[in-house]
């Protein structure tokens, strides 16, 4: 989809509850990526001489804190979504256009009931091994 086509589409609205849901998913995904990174650092640890592991331990600790930070924020967004009335809504177009990570903007746009924003190149982009 061209940028011009994306601009000409009808404004995209979403309820606050849906916005919080979508945020919860994305924050949860970011947290999961931290957990993956944490496990990778753990594997690297085995290949590093014992005297040089301090830096990796520090890195693991930071990533672990970040994962906890994100999963807590995700839980907060989930809870708030459940408490927010469905009839409160807002336009998400401008906020979506502020997201410079194409894949993220696409996923969020689709989750709000819109189309992919045209930045993300094809459904095979990324590292998901879909069937």
């Amino acid at each position: 989809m061209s940028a011009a086509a994306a601009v000409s589409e009808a404004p995209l609205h979403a309820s606050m509850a849906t916005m919080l849901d979508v945020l919860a998913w994305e924050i949860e995904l970011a947290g999961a990526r931290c957990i993956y990174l944490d496990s990778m650092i753990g594997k690297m640890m085995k290949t590093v001489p014992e005297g040089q592991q301090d830096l990796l331990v520090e890195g693991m600790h930071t990533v672990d804190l970040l994962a906890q930070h994100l999963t807590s924020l995700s839980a907060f967004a989930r809870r708030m979504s459940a408490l927010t009335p469905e009839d409160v809504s807002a336009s998400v177009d401008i906020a979506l256009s502020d997201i410079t990570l194409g894949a993220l903007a696409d996923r969020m746009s689709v989750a709000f009931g819109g189309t992919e924003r045209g930045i993300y190149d094809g459904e095979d982009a990324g590292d998901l091994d879909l069937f």
Partner: protein
Amino acid sequence: MIYAQGQKIIVGDSDRTVLELLQIRLDTAGYHVCLARNGPAVLELLKQVRPAVMILDAGLAELSAFDILDTLKKRGEKPCPVLLTGRRLAPEDVKRGIGLGVRDCMLKPFSGADVVERVARLLRPPAPPKPASPPPMVKPPPAEFGSAYL
């Protein structure tokens, strides 16, 4: 941390974020994850993979989770334990799912940690039946003064 020895899990969901989240979470927990974006893809995967657990979204595109389980039932295939997910799951959906092999349900949005925990619970072998309790000890009647036990 729960660590599974490469047991296979099929995840069927039309939402890329959910698929990616579950792939990372379950993969990190040691499972082998197979992803499908729609119902026909789940059925196609089932021809090649014998999963230990399936995580299916009730509103999966093209063929719902119920349609998939119904198809398996008609083929006479016994499905593996199924974790049903959905934004809204009506009591009748849950009831229908249980009749088709659903063992657990989760409302969306859920946390990745919860899913890993639920999957581990589904894979846990059932607790062995408790052994029959031994008959209660019967106290011998108090010996009367002068009586003798042989």
